[in-house]
């Protein structure tokens, strides 16, 4: 397909995505909007994970822990320091970015199983650390922003006034998360196509070759972790807002990190549309599984089976399927 055509298709898809986000809440129930808002948070975190694992080839089992860093940044700043919640979002991203660098710096010497175990240990340790520093984090009780009406831009049960219009809270959260998500997705798209993205891919494909070509692999690996941290932080921050303004150490246990990597791979590493699908997968399939049967353990079985089936039938993930479906369309153009 010619380059012009490809760019044009990209623009059309982006425009369609924006339009979809703007229009969708009209057809959604309040509850669904809230769920989709949370999916939006996963979407952002998964994009970050895709950058470090999919594009740079560094497996990270700690994305959930980085989300926790962002979440707690927002919670602490809003609850204890009177920040306006929305303004903490970029701050949460930056703090989590720093955490990402802190993880990435020692991790750059590791790879494969070693890296997986290191990030796994980090993810398992995070809830324990959060409980330990209870003076800062509220310990096992977590932090509840529900009462912080003054610092919250979003009304508790009512509506939000933004840009001169009145919007239902959950709709607002939906716009917020997916709006930021699309912007960050666009940023990721640019990053991937630029010099940094090429360096990432070089590191993934062959570290030795990349190093021989003069690429500072350690730097780029650390950078990838840092950037993924930013995305996780923003996602985590939004997640607090979208989860009834509450966060506790168990919100982002190792299971979240596991869920995120599942979402990234099921979505299809290397496909931004896939990341959205992956986020929807991990948000909605567990619920669907719970609806099938609420016998203890049954939802887990169905969810696991869904994961296995998708991976067996679609090794390229959901994004890969999407690409295959849309190819005949684009080829005919």
């Amino acid at each position: 397909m010619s380059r012009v055509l490809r760019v044009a298709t990209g623009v059309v898809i982006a425009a369609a995505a924006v339009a979809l986000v703007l229009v969708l809440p009209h057809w959604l129930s309040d509850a669904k909007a809230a769920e989709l808002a949370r999916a939006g948070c996963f979407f952002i975190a998964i994009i970050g994970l895709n950058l470090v694992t999919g594009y740079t080839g560094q497996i990270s089992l700690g994305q959930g822990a980085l989300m926790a860093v962002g979440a707690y940044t927002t919670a602490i700043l809003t609850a204890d320091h009177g920040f306006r919640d929305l303004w903490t979002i970029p701050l949460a991203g930056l703090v989590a970015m720093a955490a990402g660098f802190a993880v990435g710096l020692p991790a750059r010497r590791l790879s494969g199983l070693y890296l997986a175990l290191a990030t796994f240990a980090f993810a398992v340790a995070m809830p324990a650390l959060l409980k330990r520093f209870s003076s800062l984090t509220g310990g096992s009780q977590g932090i509840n922003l529900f009462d912080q009406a003054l610092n919250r831009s979003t009304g508790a049960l009512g509506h939000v006034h933004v840009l001169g219009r009145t919007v239902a809270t959950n709709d607002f959260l939906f716009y917020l998360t997916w709006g930021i998500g699309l912007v960050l997705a666009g940023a990721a798209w640019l990053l991937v196509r630029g010099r940094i993205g090429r360096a990432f891919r070089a590191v993934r494909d062959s570290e030795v070759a990349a190093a021989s070509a003069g690429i500072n692999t350690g730097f780029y690996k650390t950078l990838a972790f840092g950037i993924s941290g930013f995305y996780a932080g923003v996602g985590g921050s939004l997640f607090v807002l979208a989860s009834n303004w509450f966060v506790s150490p168990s919100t982002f246990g190792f299971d979240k990190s596991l869920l995120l990597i599942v979402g990234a791979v099921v979505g299809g590493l290397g496909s931004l549309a896939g990341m959205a699908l992956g986020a929807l997968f991990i948000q909605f399939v567990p619920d669907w599984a719970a609806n099938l049967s609420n016998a203890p353990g049954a939802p887990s079985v169905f969810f696991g089976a869904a994961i296995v089936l998708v991976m067996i039938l679609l090794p390229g993930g959901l994004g890969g399927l999407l690409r295959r479906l849309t190819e005949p369309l684009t080829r005919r153009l």
Partner: protein
Amino acid sequence: MVFAVDWAGVAQQVVAGLSSGGIYAILAVAFVLIYRATGVVNFAQGELAMFSTFVAWTLTQHGFGYWPAFVVTVLASFAGGIALERVVIRPVEKASVLTIAIVTIGLFFIVNGAAFWIWSPEVKSMPNAFSTRPIRIAGVAFSISDLGIIGVSLLAVLVLWLFFRFTKLGLAMRAAALNPESSRLTGIRVSWTIALGWGLATALGAVAGLMAAPPLGSFDQNFMQPILLYAFAGAVLGGIDSALGAVIGSLVLGVFLNLLGTYVSWVGTDLRQAAALAVILGVLLVRPAGLLGTTAVRRV
């Protein structure tokens, strides 16, 4: 000040630590087996061991003694592991290692969920494998159970070592893990060696679970998760590169954690896990190859 050490107490704790370490070692070897043969990180290793243990428990509830249930379960787990590989892993064996890892995560959810679905969430308890009476050696009282577990662990590892070193099949499996291409040219059915590897790993997991359950008194479907964590820590400490490293690292870790728990009063269960995490992170930061591992030479 007179420095009096309760050597008897230390000896008892060392033995107890070796006993726990032995369990971690078996699970670590199972994990390393699959990893070295296929490059796959089997997230479901612990849950499969748990499932096997529950199957054994059911047998004991239907008139089987502990050891008959043990034998049946280990054999069934071997077969189950092979079946699992053929049905779930083989369809994706050509995909990336990450994809296969995600499949094992799916397996984790399935097996964990199935265990809750089939058996109720209330805690169970397992009949004892060994006598609970103490035995006196050189005037010190040791738990027969601890010694028994150490014995079984060492025996399992020994049998495995003998298998890989001296049998034709074991050699074929090692070759397939090292160089699948050349192995095929020699006529080795690499795909089946992988299935066999899964069978062995699942059987080993069953042994680990069955050794771990009785001393716990009561256990539920999540009981293998901390043990898997300790097994990882032990494997990392000794060096994931080799099964021997995984074994020695696990034994050392078991002793270390036990002594830590006994002699440092503020270390409770929570902190045991934290200590294990600290070991993992510490080793990976300082000497990723572990105590016995050699830094891998990367092929260009």
